[in-house]
């Protein structure tokens, strides 16, 4: 493989600019992987890697991924929050690579909440 250079970056920039004018980059879903010490130690990184690979494979552009810190429920980590626009956020507990694949395909893409893995509905309230 040829070495990647700044010129490649310029080509990517042009390509992305052309694509951007073709579709609106609306954000439909936000997925948060909780990555405090507890989350990382219990496998949040593997969950995140799987999620990024799934998004890449599905070629969707309206899903944004972010991380957050610990929210105090360390024993139920890894935790993932799926927030579809105009719907209450859903928190999933004890997530692993297989579960996140199912959550991504069924909930993020098809809108079906995966009830067996759900911890709670709604946002956490921090004191």
């Amino acid at each position, binding site marked *: 493989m040829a070495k990647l250079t700044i010129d490649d*970056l310029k080509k*990517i920039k042009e390509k992305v600019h052309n694509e951007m004018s073709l579709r609106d980059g609306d954000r439909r879903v936000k997925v948060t992987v909780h990555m405090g010490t507890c989350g*990382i*130690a219990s496998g949040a*990184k593997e969950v995140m890697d799987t999620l990024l690979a799934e998004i890449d494979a599905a070629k969707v552009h309206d899903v944004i991924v972010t991380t957050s810190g610990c929210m*105090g429920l360390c024993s139920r980590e890894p935790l993932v929050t799926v927030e579809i626009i105009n719907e209450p956020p859903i928190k999933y507990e004890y997530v692993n690579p297989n579960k996140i694949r199912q959550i991504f395909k069924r909930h993020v893409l098809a809108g079906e909440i995966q009830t067996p893995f759900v911890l709670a509905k709604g946002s956490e309230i921090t004191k």
Partner: protein
Amino acid sequence: MLTLSDHILDITENSIRAGAKLIEISIDEDSENDLLTIEIKDDGHGMNPDAVQKVVDPFYTTKTVRRVGLGLPLLKDAAERSGGTFQLKSQENYGTTVKATFGLRHLDRQPLGAIINIIIILIISNSDIDFFYKHRHNDRRFEMDTREIRKEIEDIPVNHPEIIKYIRGTMEEGLREIEPEA
């Protein structure tokens, strides 16, 4: 925490919470002196001397959702288990530097792990923060600076899938060249 990359991701979380705009992560492998040094430097709001004294106490945390804070104590333990050291310097309003050394060939040193994935996760989820990654293996060096990339791509967000693919590509190439032994 099974790998040193996990620790890096965890400690960087502290920098992000401290409002850092630039986070420098450097990994230095010195085979001659059998030394591996990991340094994470941020320009966040820093800590007062009192807090610096307490950070490695597992029962000290600034968060209110739970009573323990294990990130830094776990890193300190991992370093000392491999015959290394742990050092934290911080100045209020200027930032914090965490430095941990490890015995490079020590049996109890955790492997570096998937460092590229960690850097990608950090960039994707914190597109407003700049990351400067430096990796040295004896006389070979690799550097990746999101400030340089940002200059070239102008208005495209640094966490755009095409840009992430590019960053992953350069990192894979760069690390293949320096052949890390950690």
